[in-house]
């Protein structure tokens, strides 16, 4: 009986189950895997991806798409490499402002002009990437050491600030979606925009707000990245977009919006951030990562499609 319950829980929280299985297997099979050093590496790669994924998840829940997240992070890294050396506080504020501005443009274009979010954010992504390359054609600039130390602040080899940020973002995202009115509105708009209009929700405002949140989170992710890579490079956030979309869909969020749990997406992010260290530690070419992430992306939707069809069939 208890076993059955455990089984059911592990199915509901499948991303965590997979993560734990993989993690235990790695610790057992690969010597030197379960060291503080590895944790720190994983955490460092995880933190920016985590923030970006939270933003992407919110946007996808409203039934839209944000392709500009990775490029916003990249642009933030580039801008930070110019500004942080002048004045850290002002630089950080300006970087966040960039996120707000891009989010506003995205939201405005999607809701007020009626351009599909896919095209809008593809356009802004193109512009932002071009801008980042224009400002820094080759890696350069200096991130001040004090900021780098701040981001990489360690206690016994463990990067505590990154951990705190991940924790805050995780709990914050869960709280926002589960416990606040705004979270419920996001789900309502994602399920059916016309019905949410009938109960008096302003989908326009909610969507613009969600795009702004996504922009700001990407900018924060960019700030963290700038502390991690310590140089202004125009390809800093290149893998973030694909991985964040993969994490959101692997976490069971429907691409049409309105359904999905952020808690499970967190597990998916953990799982995806395990791929790179796993490949490099087992001696595979880490560039397999792209192939694996792509396969997970397609596979997760194939699976969720199959499951929902089965569920619907059962209801009939």
């Amino acid at each position, binding site marked *: 009986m208890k076993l059955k319950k455990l089984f059911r829980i592990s199915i509901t929280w499948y991303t965590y189950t997979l993560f734990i299985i993989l993690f235990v297997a790695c610790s057992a099979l690969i010597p030197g895997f379960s060291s503080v050093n590895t944790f720190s590496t994983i955490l460092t790669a995880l933190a920016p991806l985590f923030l970006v994924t939270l933003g992407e998840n919110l946007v996808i829940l409203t039934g839209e798409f944000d392709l500009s997240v990775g490029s916003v992070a990249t642009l933030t890294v580039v801008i930070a490499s110019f500004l942080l050396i002048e004045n850290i506080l002002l630089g950080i504020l300006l970087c966040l402002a960039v996120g707000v501005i891009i989010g506003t443009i995205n939201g405005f274009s999607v809701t007020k002009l009626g351009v599909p979010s896919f095209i809008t954010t*593809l356009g802004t992504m*193109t512009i932002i990437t071009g801008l980042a390359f224009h400002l820094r054609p080759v890696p350069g600039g200096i991130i001040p050491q004090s900021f780098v130390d701040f981001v990489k602040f360690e206690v016994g080899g463990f990067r505590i600030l990154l951990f705190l940020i991940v924790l805050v973002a995780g709990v914050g995202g869960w709280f926002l979606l589960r416990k606040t009115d705004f979270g419920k509105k996001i789900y309502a708009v994602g399920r059916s925009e016309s019905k949410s209009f009938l109960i008096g929700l302003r989908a326009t405002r909610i969507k613009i707000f969600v795009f702004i949140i996504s922009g700001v989170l990407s900018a924060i992710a960019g700030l963290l990245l700038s502390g991690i890579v310590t140089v202004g490079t125009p390809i800093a956030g290149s893998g973030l977009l694909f991985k964040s979309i993969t994490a959101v869909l692997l976490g069971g969020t429907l691409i049409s919006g309105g359904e999905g749990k952020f808690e499970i997406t967190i597990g998916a992010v953990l799982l995806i951030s395990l791929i790179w260290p796993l490949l490099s530690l087992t001696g595979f070419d880490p560039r397999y990562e792209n192939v694996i992430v792509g396969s997970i992306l397609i596979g997760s939707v194939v699976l969720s499609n199959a499951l929902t069809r089965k569920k619907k069939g059962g209801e009939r």
Partner: protein
Amino acid sequence: MIKHVRTMLGSSLRVLALLIGITWLVSSILLPAWLSTQHLFTILRAVSILCMVSFGQMIVILSGEIDLSVGGTIYFVTVILPLLTRSQIPVWAIIPFGLILGVLVGTVNGIFVGKLKIPSIVQTLGMHLILMGLCWLIGGSIHRRCDPFLITLVSMKIGFIPLIFFILLAVSIFLFFILRNSSLGWKIRAVGSNPEASRLTGLNLVSLRITIFIISGILAGAAGVMYLGWIGRSAYGAGNILVEEYMLQSIAAVIIGGTTFKGGRGGVPQTMLGAFTLVTIFSLLRILGMEPRSRYMIMGLIMLIFVAAHFRARRR
């Protein structure tokens, strides 16, 4: 005055044609090399390759889907074909093989989108990641030379018109009549404007979607062969264009040409105009000395402006 501008935006394509006409006039007066045989040849060659990809993208977009894997397909073709040349396979077998690779990718995309109901964004994005990963693993960073005959074929010209431009013209006339006069063309537009209704009228959406993605795959494969003949070796980025960016450029060309995701607007001439616009602007910016990837700022801006104009025009 404002009203006048608005009505002009309504016919945004005429504005586009006018703007491009003015750009050509001004640059041929100011830049002595603009109307030289070599420059015209370069422009037409770039147009031919971009148009090839964009036609496939246009047909996919007309049917309400998107193909993000075209860039990956081109890269795949340019990596695989030189390998075949090395193993002494004759050139007349290599060129069709490029197309077959395209068909292969298209078929997989079509089956997953049509049969398994995976959203095309997810499917083709995943496919893109997988293809890029595969290319890196096969050795995309190694520059392998392609068959010299292919290079002469692509650089062959009549006057200033490249041979491949005639191939493009033949393809475009063929596609124009397919879209206009064949039942396939009507089906594509019908699915794009209302998939549910067209399913109810008895269209076989599965086979239709597979056909559409195969067409896009073939055209991307053909573009890959041409690109390889242009660059002369397998390369991730050469000349002024990174392989991956054909994905962005093809979507931009289609969208600037006024093809929208719903309702079967747009067609072959519009897309050609869109591709021509992009190539002209890129060439102009290159002469003005802008970094290759910074030019994407301008491309994104133009794309967003025209998308907004098209959508405003349609709302009226």
